[in-house]
């Protein structure tokens, strides 16, 4: 099950904890992976760890021209892009009343607009191949909201609506578009939280623990697999029961 031998996958934000594990999972299932991110060193380290079938493509997702070029570079490196995982994301938290236009716009640009552009960039090849998998990494916050994260929550909810619309349009071509919505996952970002903050968060999680990046990766692997061909427009919540939606 979940064999991706011969498939080529582009993963953004592969220098981060979740993105790195997504790339590892797809690679372990046989896929060739293109690792994208802003920082080259961790991407090169991951590529070295994976060995063969791994390409490094640095890209600044806040730069429109770089984003437009990424699908082409990935197709040139691997031959095609059969699986796209839009995992890269940033936060610029602030109280709503204090949030600047720049904080709003930069989060929407990187999280939502770059996802739109990358989806558009890979569709031509997927349409011709009559096969494609797009997995957009949303967030539980996109469904529940979170104080201080109006921009981030809007971008993550926007991904869900965008994914569903695209899913409608391309379903007849063998292309599925889904979201994975992580809850609280152990990453560099959540490592910064104090034990007190973590404790408070965990009281809201029925599973009683933080999730692991590998558990997000497993959800992505499923949605990227041939077996998930009848699943499209869905959001798979991976949050330990924190929000049962």
């Amino acid at each position, binding site marked *: 099950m979940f064999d991706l031998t011969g498939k080529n996958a582009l993963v953004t934000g592969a220098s981060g904890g979740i993105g790195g594990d997504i790339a590892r999972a797809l690679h372990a299932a046989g896929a060739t992976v293109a690792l994208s991110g802003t920082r080259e060193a961790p991407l090169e380290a991951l590529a070295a760890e994976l060995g063969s079938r791994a390409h490094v493509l640095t890209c600044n997702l806040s730069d429109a021209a770089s984003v437009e070029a990424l699908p082409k570079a990935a197709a040139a490196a691997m031959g095609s892009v059969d699986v796209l995982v839009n995992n890269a994301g940033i936060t610029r938290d602030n109280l709503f009343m204090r949030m600047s236009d720049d904080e709003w716009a930069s989060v929407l640009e990187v999280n939502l607009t770059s996802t739109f552009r990358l989806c558009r960039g890979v569709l031509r090849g997927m*349409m011709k191949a009559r096969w494609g998998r797009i997995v957009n990494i949303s967030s539980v916050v996109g469904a529940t909201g979170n104080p201080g994260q109006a921009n981030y929550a809007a971008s993550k909810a926007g991904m869900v609506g965008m994914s569903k619309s695209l899913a409608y349009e*391309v379903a*007849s071509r063998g292309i599925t578009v889904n979201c994975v919505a992580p809850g609280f996952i152990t990453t560099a970002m959540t490592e910064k939280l104090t034990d007190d903050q973590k404790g408070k968060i965990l009281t809201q999680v029925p599973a009683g623990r933080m999730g692991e990046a590998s558990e997000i990766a497993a959800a992505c692997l499923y949605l990227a697999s041939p077996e998930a061909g009848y699943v499209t427009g869905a959001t798979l919540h991976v949050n330990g029961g924190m929000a049962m939606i």
Partner: protein
Amino acid sequence: MSDIADRVKKIVVEHLGVEENKVIENASFIDDLGADSLDTVELVMAFEEEFGIEIPDDAAETIQTFGDAVKFITGAA
């Protein structure tokens, strides 16, 4: 019939799975040949590749019939 028209017709027949004799000058891709809106996007992509041309979106919207396609490509190729 010109070489361009023959090549365009071949693409339309293959892509939409229609009889060659249905692909006439005024045949509308959507109304007469059963294409959906995504098919028309795919046809334009196929024309671009076959003829090595770029068909901008605003021009693509004007290509509604087989005749439109041949006319546009003849002008662009």
